[in-house]
């Protein structure tokens, strides 16, 4: 068994821009990436976190064949996975057949190729002999993952997870577990999701889209803003060699709220269990957690439930925490990937990211997130939470890497 799961590469794309550098800049400047929807026509007055590049522009950046149809989910995933892969130095080994290392890709998505399928379906429903079949090739969630694997030249274990908004955290957890038990040496893990009309209408039908910028953990919060993006990590066994180490995956746990298909329980049972089990696994004391990137969607239900879980675990000593969804919107299946990258940046560079649009603590909970960007000398461990429909809750813990602990 491998006890240490090293984080050796990160890649991300969100409304803040393409790449890690633009995220750091955006997060530090406290400027939101959320703006009125422009990608497609809808009757909803929605503010969203769009990636400000068209599909054609991304195809150009990635040097992909122009005649092929790619879902936006695939394109965003390719951007982030490629950045993480290059960052880890793995791409340099491609011609050498990766030195025989077992490399896998575990991606996550909730909408898959829906952005393309819904265009197909509009034509198809009027005449079932119409509609370009090529547009359907990317519909299944697994297709985006397979295209990313082919692009990176990964021929080992490849799979896709879909547990709504906790999807990417589960992908990261599985990658860590596969390395722990020696089934993989290296795992590229994360998630990707694009905005589409289906999800805009879905969340609107649930009445949880806020027409204003979302206000996570604020007493006046009235819903979420949808976003899009992708976030990937490269995890490596400590038995493989690497130059750069951002930190280690020290804890992970998945639990189910088993309360309601879409709503979270008032006492935050699923969130409590996920965080509690992850902390127990890491062997850390509560006071060794220096930052929590909460799920914090901005819906009245999620934030109250997650807040209750935080108090159940940490009592009056809740560590500095924030939701970064005020910057990016809720990127659904990608959220765990994006926010894991944000949490690793917090750990590695010593930043506590601010929670935008917060003014008043939720009644009865008295929880105040960090509202300005803080710089810390030393960060020990950070938690990132992702919760989804179906009661799926997953928490991950990343800890700073102590090179001495690896000697002998």
């Amino acid at each position: 068994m491998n006890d240490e799961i090293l984080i050796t590469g990160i890649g991300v794309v969100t409304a803040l821009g393409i790449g890690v550098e633009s995220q750091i800049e955006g997060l530090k400047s406290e400027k939101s990436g959320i703006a009125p929807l422009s990608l497609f026509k809808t009757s909803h007055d929605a503010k969203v976190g769009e990636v400000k590049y068209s599909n054609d522009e991304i195809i150009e950046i990635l040097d992909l064949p122009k005649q092929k149809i790619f879902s936006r989910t695939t394109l965003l995933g390719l951007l982030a996975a490629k950045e993480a892969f290059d960052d880890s130095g793995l791409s340099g080994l491609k011609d050498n057949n990766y030195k025989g290392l077992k490399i896998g890709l575990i991606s996550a998505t909730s909408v898959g190729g829906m952005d393309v399928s819904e265009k197909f379906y509009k034509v198809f429903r009027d005449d079932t002999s119409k509609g370009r079949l090529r547009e359907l090739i990317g519909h299944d969630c697994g297709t985006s993952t397979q295209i990313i694997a082919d692009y990176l030249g990964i021929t080992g274990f490849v799979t896709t997870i879909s547990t709504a908004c906790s999807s990417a955290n589960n992908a990261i957890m599985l990658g860590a577990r596969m390395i722990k038990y020696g089934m993989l040496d290296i795992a590229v893990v994360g998630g990707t999701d694009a905005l589409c009309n289906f999800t805009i209408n879905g969340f609107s039908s649930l009445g949880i889209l806020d027409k204003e910028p979302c206000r996570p953990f604020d007493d006046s919060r009235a819903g979420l803003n949808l976003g899009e993006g992708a976030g990937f990590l490269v995890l490596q066994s400590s038995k493989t060699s690497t130059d750069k180490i951002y930190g280690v995956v020290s804890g992970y746990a998945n639990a189910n709220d088993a309360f309601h298909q879409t709503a979270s329980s008032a006492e935050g049972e699923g969130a409590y269990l996920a965080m509690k089990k992850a902390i127990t696994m890491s062997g850390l004391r509560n006071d060794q957690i220096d930052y929590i990137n909460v799920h914090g969607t901005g819906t009245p239900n999620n934030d109250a439930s997650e807040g209750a879980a935080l108090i159940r675990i940490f009592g009056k000593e809740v560590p500095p925490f924030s939701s970064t969804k005020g910057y990016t919107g809720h990127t659904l299946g990608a959220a765990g990937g994006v926010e894991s990258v944000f949490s690793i940046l917090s750990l590695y560079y010593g930043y506590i990211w601010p929670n935008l649009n917060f003014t008043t603590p939720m009644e009865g909970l008295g929880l105040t997130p960090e509202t300005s960007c803080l710089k810390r000398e030393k960060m020990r461990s950070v938690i990132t939470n992702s919760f989804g429909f179906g009661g799926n809750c997953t928490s991950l813990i990343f800890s700073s890497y102590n090179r001495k602990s690896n000697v002998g």
Partner: protein
Amino acid sequence: MLDRKVYINSIAGISPSMAAKGFPDVGEPDYKEYVPDPGARRRMSRIIRMGVASALMCLKDNHINSLDGIITGTGWGCLSDTEKFLNSIFENSERMLNPTSFIQSTSNTIGAQVALLTGEKNYNNTFVHGGTSFEAAMIDALLKLQEDSCDNILVGGLDEMTPTKSHLLGRMGVWRHTSPGEGSHFFVLSSAKEMSSIAEIVSVETFSSAGLPAGYKLECTQIDRILSGVDNLGELTTDTKPQVVNFKELCGEYPTSTAFALWLACDTFNKEHDIDRILIVNKHLRDQLSLIIIKRAGL
């Protein structure tokens, strides 16, 4: 492969395609028995009903009370709810939409519903990787069962065929070579061998879509029967001369047909006493190739 052995201690399944061919006890059951609330039953689309009922059957038949996880695999996900919600967007010009089909369109709905109905707050995961979704769910369960505190995991593979899916695959020419299928099969995987244990899992592997790597050797070459879902077994070699059964002639073509094949393999152990080791080989359309080997429990 892994230190702790993993057993299949309970199986259950619904296979409408097999039932249509006249096989008894494999069709859709009276759902009232599994979902007594008529409102809840009505809201569930067919795949949710099939999934939830077969999952509960798998738990009930063998009196398994505590679960450490629920893991599902589905290649196509909840197609009819997805289509229903898409249609409602167009029909109602995006206004006053009923959220039920949107909520139920996410692929993890079945795993979530089973957790809700059984009150299980433990591990819950869903795989959606085409023709190897069920295999990935099994691999996740094998790994999770290596942990000390983990004893029983419910694992299922399920897909529904809808008129639209069948029509579209027909337009793509898929039905020229094979016939449409669907089904839902669940298993209790356990780290404990019990009297009720049916099989032990020897290996579960998935490969890139190109097929087997050069020089590949099976984890176990003493195979008594091959359940095949491929046109051609290619490089696969065994030390024995096993009978090859094309399992898709029974269940039809769908991404998680290997969950049916695993059910069939376990059923074979129950019925044929000279069969001890079974290899399942499959490839769904152009997806990845997968291999599952199981042997009779206690061998």
